[in-house]
């Protein structure tokens, strides 16, 4: 089953065309990465799925259902949770409240406050402190935990390693591999080759808003991956 399919999508912010006929798909149980330099449109792919970037041509389908128009909450209700770039922890809410917000979509499954805190014990320890008062790494755990609270079929992570220390990125990679082993599909948008190499099975390379390469990660070296991004 294909969880997410973009078919020849042109994505816009206002009158500015960012995505040029982007096609990609993520199937159930897959771990897929989108690679590319800064400013090539990686985040716009996510924003198109969230209705933040306007889709003027092409089609986006969640779980086989074509979506038009896409509103901000459409993806969540179709079982697609997003860990946005910059984490976007809601100011003024505690860790517990940020996690509760993640459950707003009301999908049942294995993830709840207790199971998320078992995965990230620091969230239980700091449950009643403001989410924005935590360190960058802890906020990333909170952002992933909030997304898991939706019990998603597909988890989209936009630059999750941004601003994190290498040791935290290692922990993040281990967590994502573990999540993938628990039937959560992953779409990873990253520039960190090491993270992509450890987590993803397939990749797409984006350049100037278009997919210029794709393939499988297995058997490739990190140097190969870097070469693909240097298109």
């Amino acid at each position, binding site marked *: 089953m294909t969880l997410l399919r973009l078919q020849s999508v042109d994505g816009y912010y206002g009158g500015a065309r960012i995505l040029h006929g982007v096609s990609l798909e993520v199937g159930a149980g897959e771990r897929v990465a989108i690679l590319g330099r800064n400013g090539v449109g990686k985040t716009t792919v996510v924003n198109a799925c969230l209705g933040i970037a306007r889709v003027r041509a092409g089609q986006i389908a969640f779980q086989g259902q074509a979506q038009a128009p896409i509103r901000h*909450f459409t*993806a*969540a209700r179709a079982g697609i949770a997003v860990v946005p770039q910059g984490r976007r922890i809601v100011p*003024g*809410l505690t860790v517990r409240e940020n996690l509760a917000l993640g459950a*707003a*979509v009301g999908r049942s499954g294995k993830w709840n406050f207790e199971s998320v805190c078992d995965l990230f014990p620091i969230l239980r320890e700091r449950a009643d402190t403001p989410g924005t008062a935590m360190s960058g790494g802890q906020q990333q755990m909170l952002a992933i935990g909030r997304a898991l609270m*939706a019990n998603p079929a597909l988890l989209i992570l936009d630059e999750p390693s941004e601003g994190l220390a290498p040791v935290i990125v290692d922990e993040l990679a281990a967590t994502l591999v573990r999540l993938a082993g628990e039937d959560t599909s992953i779409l990873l948008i990253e520039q960190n080759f090491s993270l992509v190499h450890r987590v993803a099975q397939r990749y797409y390379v984006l350049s100037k808003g278009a997919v210029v390469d794709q393939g499988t990660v297995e058997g490739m070296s990190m140097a190969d991956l870097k070469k693909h991004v240097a298109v």
Partner: protein
Amino acid sequence: MIQVINGLVYGSFLYVLAVGLVLIFGLRRVTNFAHGSFFMLGAYVSYAAAAHLGFWTGMIVSVAALAVFGALLDRFVFRPLSREEPIVTLLVTFGLLFVLEDAVRTIWGKDYISVSAPEALSGSVTLFGSQFPTYRLFVIAVAIAVALGLAVWLRSTKVGLYVRASSVDPVTTAMQGVDTDRLSALVVAIGTGLAGLSGTIAGPLMALSPSMGGYIIIDCFIVVVTGGLTSFTGAFVAALVIGQFHNLGLVYVPEVASVIPLLIMAAVLGLRPQGLAGPRK
């Protein structure tokens, strides 16, 4: 001491009105100049309904009518204009103020109308050795009930959590599956319903006139800005402070009474640009 309680009375109905404005600003980021005319409309609707159904039913009718009006306003005005520059919505609400004033003037005339307090509250009680109207104490009780009700709703319910989240980051809130448009309609309905409630309880305290909303909206904006724009606690404290100084000013320095709330706002913003309880930038 009686003057202090009178100040509490003014601060109380100012709070009930201002907190509706805080709710609407928080969710829609709309500087709603028409809020004063919702207050005025609420007073007239309640007056008209009370003539046939009594004060209490009139109050319910007023709150319900203004809430429905608010939901429609959000659906057909605020939501379509949400992608426009803020000045566009501001001008539309400013125009709405004049439309509503003229509509009320056409229906009920421009003369002042007196409204009596309900019979059960028409007496007085002895406070600090003086007689004090029971109705005025009722106004304070309404404000306390509204403050407590909102606090429980916002802090203890799922919808309250979504309202707090959406007032800070509507995009992230929607990304979690919350339909923020429906949430905004609910919140605007509650905000305008509170304006109706405020207009209703103000009826027996001040004469009804089509321009009554224009006078109160200035103090209302001062309360909201002084409190910190999106802070419910800030609005509560600011309303009580402004109410006190407004009332004491009328008694002791009537020549400059109208300037005092503005001076308080300027002083607070000078010391804390984010207001009493607004988030620090």
